[in-house]
């Protein structure tokens, strides 16, 4: 069920370099959301920017929903300047969300850059399910690391300003090799979100190690609701799936990035 609602902004604050977190009042969407899903926001009443913009559900707290975003273009710039009390038109929850019914003991969360977005909510639900969690979070530099809502965190920064110096993929390799994961792969499930090159690398590693892995995939979207067929993601059998409906969460075995 898709819910369209005019939601009130409860807070909007910078939480990192060029990174903002917005909290929205939306009882209906909060209740209906699952980790990995997203909401689609119309940031302006005018025609520019025209289309809605998709943002992962960062967290759900009672009747409130949070998003976190990087200011990269005009819509995110407008969002970053929204004031508390302003209203905003949102549709959600959209997409499929992570599958938590697999048989695994330990969740291995891998986030690169704003790929952190879906994980505080996922972490919360995993904790409720008593899963072990290992979090690997990478960013370009310390000021862009936002670690709220993560547990058992290992960090990597490109410039070495915090944690491991290097990418989160390298960190993943390190952790996986020094761990018993390679011995008992079935006990683990990887959840990854981040830029396409990072996801590609993680998928390749998971393929090699035969690890169960789900990734959150970003694709340019026009509708977010399955109407336009715009958000195609290539599948391993040479067809396409829709990031907005069949995804944004895909099993790594299904897709070809």
């Amino acid at each position, binding site marked *: 069920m898709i819910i*369209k609602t005019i939601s009130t902004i409860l807070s909007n604050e910078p939480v990192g370099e060029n990174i903002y977190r917005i909290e929205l009042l939306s009882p209906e969407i909060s209740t209906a959301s699952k980790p990995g899903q997203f909401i689609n926001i119309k940031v302006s009443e005018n025609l520019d920017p*025209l289309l809605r913009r998709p943002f992962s559900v960062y967290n759900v707290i009672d009747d409130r929903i949070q998003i976190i975003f990087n200011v990269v273009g005009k819509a995110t710039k407008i969002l970053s300047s929204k004031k508390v009390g302003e209203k905003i038109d949102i549709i959600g929850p959209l997409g499929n969300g992570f599958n938590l019914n697999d048989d695994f003991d330990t969740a291995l969360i891998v986030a690169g850059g704003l790929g952190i977005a879906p994980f505080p909510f996922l972490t919360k639900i995993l904790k409720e399910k008593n899963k072990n969690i290992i979090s690997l979070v990478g960013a370009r530099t310390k000021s862009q690391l936002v670690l709220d809502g993560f547990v058992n965190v290992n960090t990597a920064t490109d410039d070495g300003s915090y944690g491991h110096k290097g990418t989160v993929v390298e960190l993943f390799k390190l952790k996986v090799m020094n761990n018993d994961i390679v011995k008992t792969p079935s006990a683990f499930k990887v959840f990854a979100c981040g830029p396409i090159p990072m996801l590609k690398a993680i998928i390749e590693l998971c393929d090699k190690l035969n690890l169960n892995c789900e990734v959150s995939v970003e*694709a340019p979207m026009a509708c977010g609701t399955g109407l336009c067929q715009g958000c195609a993601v290539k599948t391993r059998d040479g067809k396409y799936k829709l990031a907005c409906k069949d995804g944004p969460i895909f099993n790594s075995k299904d897709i070809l990035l």
Partner: protein
Amino acid sequence: MIKTEVIVGKLRLKNPVLVASGTFGYGDELIGTIDINKLGGIVTKSLTLKPKVGNPPPRVAETPCGMLNSIGLANIGVDKFINEKLPLLRNFDTAIIVNIAAKRIEDYCEIIKRLEDTEGVSAYEINISCPNVKEGGLEFGTNIEMTAKIVNATRKLTSKTLIIKLTPNVTRISEFAKVCKEEGADAVSLINTVVGMAIDIKTRKPKISTITGGLSGPAIKPIALAKVFEVFQNVDIPIIGIGGITTWEDAIEFMIAGAKAIQVGTANFIDPNTPINIISGIIRYCEENKIEDINDIVGSIIVETFPH
């Protein structure tokens, strides 16, 4: 009570507001989200004879007040539509207009034959104007002889309302509308998307995998309106207006320019309730302006001079 019914060919629409092909799936995507029964009609995603996976990503990109798309007619194919979608759609109290695309005249014909054998199709819209497929598509829609042949061939196969969807990417669209009329089409719908392009200056690659794509949305509204008026002035055939319609005011503009009905496309992506809001807006406009029959708006433009 405002009379909202309009007649296009043999097709009675309870109101003039349709949803445009490719912007509303097969009509089933939003069941439960919006009240389908309120729509004047649904135009399905273009159906081809065989299923099509469509073009590689990226398929969409935003442009100023518009968007580019190159979906490449990704669709489930006519048979699956008949078996899986049509039975659902039949239950709704709205017109089901099946949009058809093909690479060869024979394929257009074969699709119609298969659909003629089923229940629930209200009319056909023949897409000869998709800019995003290698064969068929624009090549047909910019070629006047080919247009004539397709209309002629499909007309022979059905007594249902036959609507030809035209492309704006031609010098004089009214010449195409004229041929459609001569070959027996009941109506024309215009416009399909305008050929457009965008480049990512960081990668120097086109933002759409097929380099160019189809431009839609409010940006093209003035272009669409000019095409509707050109055809209205020059050819006596019912027109379905399409292009950037986002508000009820937009819809009224198209009707004043000569459109008997209109289709909402890109605006569905922003708000799936757009068509419903447009219907109530039009009714309000009629009430406020003491217009009893919506048909009185159609072509009611007041012009002093004539365009050149």
